[in-house]
């Protein structure tokens, strides 16, 4: 998978036609063979843009920051990224006319070990769902797979799971990198930072981390698109995807196979309901 040339051409064209102020893509990292996001504002830098199976990050995230707000942006999105973008559009965080979307029919990106990333193996929608221009040939929606790690963990007993997650929460340092890296965490003021809500007072302890992470996860339930930006950003390498995928699975299985951001104007599972939703868990 290599769309470097096409993307450079598109960027050049867009700048030439004055359609955009900034182009958000990937560039080679200077120190290793990994790639980093790259915001091009000067056509001269277009040559830096690349796209290969190392282009892992979800660039939709960059639409929530000051330097792209109300600018006309060119943006490269893979399947998962585009679903996040879809939600941002629906939740009116981005004006459609302000973004020129270069959609990719993704063949899956590589993890640091150089093998196909788990979320790409389990990907339900590799092609961009919203775009102005689509690169590659669409392969369409795929069958939903339950996350391998969850399956494994589910086999374990309650106690083991509790121990496992206690350890996870122990290692959280409450740096909130996960939140900043998530395209769907755009709140003007995050509830986690609100003293007034007296929600998360107390020192950085496993319990306060647990509370913060739980709340964060539930705020993304039915919206998370499994791009795993949060996990890549997490300095203590917490398996955050476990929490998200767990919710995704429950929602997919119980609420008409709902998947976040697949359709335009779909607002996620918690903002609609069906009379026939499961009721057996309620006395």
């Amino acid at each position: 998978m290599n769309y470097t040339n096409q993307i450079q051409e598109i960027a050049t064209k867009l700048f030439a036609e004055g359609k955009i102020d900034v182009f958000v893509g990937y560039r080679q990292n200077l120190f290793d063979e990994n790639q980093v996001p790259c915001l091009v504002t000067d056509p001269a830098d277009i040559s830096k843009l690349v796209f290969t199976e190392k282009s892992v990050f979800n660039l939709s995230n960059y639409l929530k920051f000051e330097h792209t707000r109300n600018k006309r942006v060119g943006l490269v999105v893979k399947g998962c990224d585009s679903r996040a973008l879809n939600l941002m559009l629906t939740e009116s965080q981005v004006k459609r006319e302000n973004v020129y979307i270069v959609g990719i029919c993704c063949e899956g990106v590589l993890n640091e070990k150089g093998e196909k990333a788990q979320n790409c193996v389990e990907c339900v929608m590799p092609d961009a769902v919203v775009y102005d221009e689509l690169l590659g040939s669409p392969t369409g929606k795929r069958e939903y797979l339950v996350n391998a790690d969850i399956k494994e963990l589910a086999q374990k007993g309650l106690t083991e799971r509790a121990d496992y997650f206690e350890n996870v929460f122990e290692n959280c340092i409450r740096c909130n990198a996960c939140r900043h890296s998530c395209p769907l965490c755009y709140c003007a003021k995050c509830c986690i930072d609100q003293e007034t809500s007296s929600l998360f007072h107390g020192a950085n302890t496993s319990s306060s981390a647990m509370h913060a992470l739980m709340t964060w996860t539930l705020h993304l339930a039915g919206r998370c698109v499994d791009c795993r930006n949060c996990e890549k950003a997490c300095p203590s390498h917490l398996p955050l995807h476990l929490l998200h995928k767990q919710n995704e699975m429950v929602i997919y299985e119980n609420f008409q196979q709902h998947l976040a951001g697949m359709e335009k104007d779909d607002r996620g599972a918690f903002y609609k309901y069906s009379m026939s939703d499961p009721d057996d868990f309620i006395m």
Partner: protein
Amino acid sequence: METDVKVSNTQVVSAENPDIQAHADWQPVIMGILCNWCSYAGSDLTGTSRIQYPPNIRIIRVPCSSRVDPWFIIKSLQTTADGVLISGCHPGDCHYISGNYFARRRFLVTKKLLNFIGYHENRVQFSWVSAAEGPKFAKVVDKVTTDIKKLGPLHRFKKENL
């Protein structure tokens, strides 16, 4: 002691629990969050009809089950409660037309998530109790209390600094 419980269509956990020992003198605290129009009225009816139930539940009144934010549950479990009961109007009877339908979705996901990270599924329970179901409310509280007593005190993820 307990058999396997189904956590979701695809995952099954065995629910053995270290906390299960005899706690003769110990009394659990159960946080009950009830909607004003059906369940709270129902609990009042339980009172006026003098139906007896275990004294472990502490009741919080909210206008509608849809007011219940998942963190009410988490907060309770982390601080004062050994278990949580949330009760609202029966589907279709919501005083606010559709509130409990939205709530129901959040409840399911929250319950499964908490179970996933290691809470026994009986720690958090839900019920629909109408304003006329005084007896049912007593039964529900009975069941929840017995379940929680079986599970014993909750130590996991408790807030250390209170």
